[in-house]
């Protein structure tokens, strides 16, 4: 069953995964123009003809749901229904896509050129494509790609076009609309635009959800949206947003369609285009607003080598089998289905669990390059040898031996590692290093992160400025390390728990595991309520790799396990330190209340002070992502309270 893929996604079994085909290979050998103009005849859901934009709009405007809400709004505000209707119509106009094949063909041509310059290859698992093709014919399909780059949705449409599949309709954030020309182009290539926040606006919500449901129910086109809601700046998966997932599950729960297939898609970039941009953003160096001219300035990126992209289309997951035994669909029998109703607790927790599983499925099929392992080792080395008067960096040989060790461990943990086995490890290492030469430096046979370069002597930088420019490099490196975090996360939580626990008693260790897991559940993808499973999985993996002995009531690190446990603890250490730092800030500096806006700059200042004084060694704590996550976690745990836009901290 399709659902098993999700339910067992944390299963300790090693997954069998599909092979990849490079789709650019053909592009390099045949005419892009002919490709852009070729005959395009996708298979469709149950033979439904694609729906004209105007027909779709009128279906939405005529829906019972919208009528109901229009009348309601009109009653509440005293405005004429005609007026509200017009507003609805305007919202729809602002939102709706206007997919045109000619635009797609234009993009197909342009993107072929761009992709060939930027990337060595775009590798796609063709079996996944075939599964998707099958799914499209049987049920409405929702594509759920991971989101790391602006490229993502163009890339998705490009792939769908290449394999002659129905072009998706994509939910995009309104910020694109700022770029006039590009915005319209994207609209014509199938994007529709949603405002970032429309909390209380029921008319907007209704138009939006009806629009999505109409597309889905009739199977006019595959729907595509990003579960994470926005691009992850850290390469860690973001806590899933539930709004759209709620909407796409609704037609199934209410029996309006027999089933919906959810297809997680994992897009892994060997080098992210926005690499340095993200780091700056996280450090609070403001990002340029999306604008067309800005995009053209970014064209210097075209001259660089960004390695390859791997796109893995996961097993389609049937919403029906997800909901089997979880949701009692009879709850929708007692009221007309078009009345807006807040989802029941049962449905909410079902949607939330599903979302976590789907993001988990995305993570699981992310392709990891050797660089991810290398940079993890280099970062640990960087922090361990900070400020000590010995030689900086690691020797190439040492790095190679260590990375081979780490490779074997991560494989046992089920990582989807793309390691060319027919090439000697030393070559793998050197080619990885050369692709990321902006981030590492190799001299005299030693490798270290390129942080020193950032602050060359001679340039009159204040210590703070120097710190920040180093941080840009470090955060870039960290984003690569983060790509592999999900592989090590559970064992790392266990390793840290063992480290923190006062004894080797299993219960003690579990309690400390449970505490850490709870604390970090805004930071990493950890499905609520799965503590025991996660603990068991972590134990299983560490026992399997010989790092741990678990008896009836004791957990013991083995002799040869110290190295693994040490590595894992160091992986989580920056986060632990970071969380402690933010808490210290709240206790020491933020007496009384603090507005949310003041929080980030204030905590940043506090951290910079500690970094400069040497009492904190992890520069990554400067990342605003981490700081926000701590705040969210503290709010969730009730240590901090929100009072009308102010944050007030309880005595911790």
């Amino acid at each position, binding site marked *: 069953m399709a659902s098993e893929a999700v339910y067992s996604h944390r299963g300790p079994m090693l997954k069998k995964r599909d092979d990849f085909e490079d789709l650019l290979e053909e592009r390099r050998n045949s005419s892009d123009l002919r490709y852009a103009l070729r005959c395009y005849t996708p298979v469709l859901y149950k033979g439904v003809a694609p729906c004209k934009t105007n027909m779709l709009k009128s279906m939405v405007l005529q829906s019972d749901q919208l009528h109901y809400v229009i009348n309601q709004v009109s009653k509440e505000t005293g405005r004429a229904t005609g007026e509200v209707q017009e507003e609805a119509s305007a919202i729809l106009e602002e939102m709706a896509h206007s997919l045109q094949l000619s635009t797609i063909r234009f993009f197909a041509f342009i993107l072929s050129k761009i992709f060939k310059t930027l990337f060595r290859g775009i590798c796609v698992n063709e079996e996944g494509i075939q599964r998707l093709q099958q799914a499209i014919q049987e049920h409405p399909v929702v594509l759920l790609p991971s989101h790391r780059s602006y490229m993502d949705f163009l890339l998705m449409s490009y792939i769908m076009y290449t394999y002659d599949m129905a072009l998706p309709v994509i939910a995009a954030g309104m910020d694109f609309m700022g770029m006039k020309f590009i915005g319209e182009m994207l609209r014509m290539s199938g994007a529709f635009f949603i405002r970032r926040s429309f909390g209380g606006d029921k008319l907007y919500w209704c138009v939006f959800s009806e629009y999505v449901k109409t597309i889905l129910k009739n199977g006019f086109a595959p729907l595509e949206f990003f579960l994470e809601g926005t691009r992850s700046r850290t390469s860690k998966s973001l806590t899933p947003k539930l709004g759209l997932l709620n909407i796409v599950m609704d037609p199934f729960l209410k029996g309006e369609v027999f089933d919906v297939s959810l297809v997680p898609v994992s897009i892994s970039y060997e080098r992210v285009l926005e690499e340095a941009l993200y780091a700056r953003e996280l450090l609070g160096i403001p990002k340029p607003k999306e604008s067309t001219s800005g995009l053209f300035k970014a064209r210097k990126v075209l001259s660089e080598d960004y390695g390859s992209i791997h796109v893995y289309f996961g097993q389609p997951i049937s919403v029906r089998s997800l909901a089997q035994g979880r949701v009692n669909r*009879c709850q929708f029998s007692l009221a007309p*289905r078009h009345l807006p109703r807040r989802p029941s607790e049962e449905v909410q927790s079902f949607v939330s669990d599903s979302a976590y599983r789907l993001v988990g499925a995305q993570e699981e099929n992310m392709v990891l390059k050797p660089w991810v392992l290398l940079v993890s080792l280099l970062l640990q080395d960087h922090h361990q040898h900070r400020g000590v008067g010995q030689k900086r960096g690691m020797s190439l040989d040492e790095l190679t031996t260590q990375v081979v060790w780490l490779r074997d461990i991560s494989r046992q943990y089920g990582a989807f590692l793309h390691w060319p086995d027919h090439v000697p490890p030393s070559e793998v290492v050197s080619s990885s290093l050369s692709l990321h030469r902006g981030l590492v430096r190799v001299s005299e046979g030693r490798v270290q992160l390129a942080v020193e370069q950032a602050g060359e002597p001679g340039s009159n930088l204040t210590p703070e400025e120097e710190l920040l420019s180093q941080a840009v490099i470090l955060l870039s490196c960290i984003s690569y390390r983060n790509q592999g975090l999900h592989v090590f996360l559970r064992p790392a939580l266990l390793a840290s728990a063992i480290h923190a626990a006062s004894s080797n008693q299993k219960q003690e260790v579990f309690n400390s595991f449970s505490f850490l897991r709870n604390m970090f559940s805004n930071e990493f993808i950890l499905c609520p309520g799965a503590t025991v499973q996660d603990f068991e999985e972590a134990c299983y993996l560490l026992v399997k790799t010989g790092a741990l002995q678990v008896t009836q009531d004791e957990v013991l690190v083995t002799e040869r396990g110290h190295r693994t446990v040490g590595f894992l603890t160091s992986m989580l250490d920056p986060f632990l330190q970071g969380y402690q730092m933010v808490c210290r800030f709240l206790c020491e500096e933020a007496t009384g209340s603090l507005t949310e806006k003041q929080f980030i700059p204030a905590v940043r200042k506090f951290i910079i002070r500690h970094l400069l004084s040497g009492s904190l060694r992890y520069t990554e704590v400067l990342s605003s992502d981490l700081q926000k996550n701590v705040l969210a976690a503290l709010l969730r745990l009730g240590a901090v309270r929100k009072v009308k836009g102010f944050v007030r901290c309880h005595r911790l």
Partner: protein
Amino acid sequence: MKWNGWGYSDSRFLFNKKGQAEFTGKRYRLSGMIIPGLKDWFESTFGASLQHKTPPILNSGAVPPPTLNEAFVEELKSTGIPMSHEAEDRVFRSHGHCLHEIFALREGKVGRVPDMVVWPSCHNDVVKIVELACKHNVCVMPYGGGTSVSSALECPPEETRSIVSLDTSQMNRILWIDEKNLTAHVEAGIVGQDLERLLNESGYCTGHEPDSMEFSSLGGWVATRASGMKKNIYGNIEDLVVHVKMVTPRGVLEKSCQGPRMSTGPDVHHFIMGSEGTLGVVTEVTMKIRPMPEYQKYGSVVFPNFEQGVACLREVAKQRCAPASIRLMDNEQFQFGHALKPQVSSIFTSFLDGLKKFYITKFKGFDPSYLCVATLLFEGDREKVLQHEKQVYDIAAKFGGLAAGEDNGQRGYMLTFVIAYLRDLGMDYYVIGESFETSVPWDRVLDICRNVKARIVRECKDKGVQFPPLSTCRVTQTYDAGACVYFYFAFNYRGLSEPVHVYEQVEHAAREEILANGGSLSHHHGVGKLRKEWMPETVSNVGMGMLKSVKDYVDPNNIFGNRNLL
């Protein structure tokens, strides 16, 4: 009557030596005819083959010896009421017509059966039997026509007392007809077709025509809340009943007068209707009668697709102008009906058929794999019928419907009478099937039809059924607030080691799907033992408590121990 299949012994489908299907006997319009299209339809729909036969095992198997309550038997003998503990009589009354029941019989398997059969001939006989049963703690199971499809007649295997099957078939008289009030007082054992025939002789009818009316009994209708095909004119059983007598362990339950409506607290008739033999035996019923209709006319409408058809039925219901019967068959059922067309008598008719087909598919552009048919039956005086007919056809036209002749309509109704015979034919060739029904609000009709049919297909696939199943439905009754939907489902079980188990799992899943889509547990088949697991969620725990407390009061010792419903 057959003991291990449906209906009369002389009527059955078979494939003759030439491989053509024919229907034997003389009783039906289809009797004695060759049905040329059936074999192809049968083979292509199920992937079945005439080479692979599964004939029934004729040895009725070892029937366990009866557990008799000697004291009860002795005292009963003195009353002179006929009784029997012959194996054949007992087996015959041990089952209804669920697939698993018939399948077991064909394989010669017999489970717990009644220990004896009694044939009361009037109300007072029943009173005596029930008194004695209470005195000697014997379990009584009322038996009417034996057409149950809810496992209601299955003897509970855990029952250790002697089980007496109380066969009402000898209580089959019309006791009086009241022409002033248009009511008839009838003994409850009368079978539908006899009741209708006898009333017709006096120029009346009840108009209650369930598909099983050839065999089902008046008492059974009351005990299961039956529904008839022509309920749009005559009403369902609860609309037809004026007065009922039921013999219970506490005594006789009846009302004191025949007022057409009463405001006297909850209607005690509603404890009787749908009680499924758990509270007592219905012995006599006063029911409404009507003068026989002057004129009857069949009709049919072809729609380009099922959605349009449902929209049309909804409109007809909204305007409250439904004919005596209106049914909408989906495309699969239309094809099925088509396969049952008897051999045409002349070249002219076949030419005409071809022309019709050409007109609909080519000229009107209906896709033969989407189109569906509504069958209609009008009744009343001639003028009104014609007027009514026009009104309905005008509505149909608004939904793209084309009138498609009387013949198609009539064949549609015939299908419901012969389908049970067809199941026996299927069982000869590895095909098993069943029908089930539900009622559902209008706005969910399309969704429930689509989802339940798809669920059946998916479940069959998941359970290892090698061939795609037949999964089809029709909207068979219309109401103000919703409709009754009837599903047929059948599959070829070659390659399955436990076909009945698979079948039951699929049926169970289909019922879950119905409930999940806002459908009811049953529209007219009843609950029996087959569907009672869903009763608490259907009527709530409080509702269950209410029903149970009635049972506890009326029958504290569980004399009527068939364990249906609760």
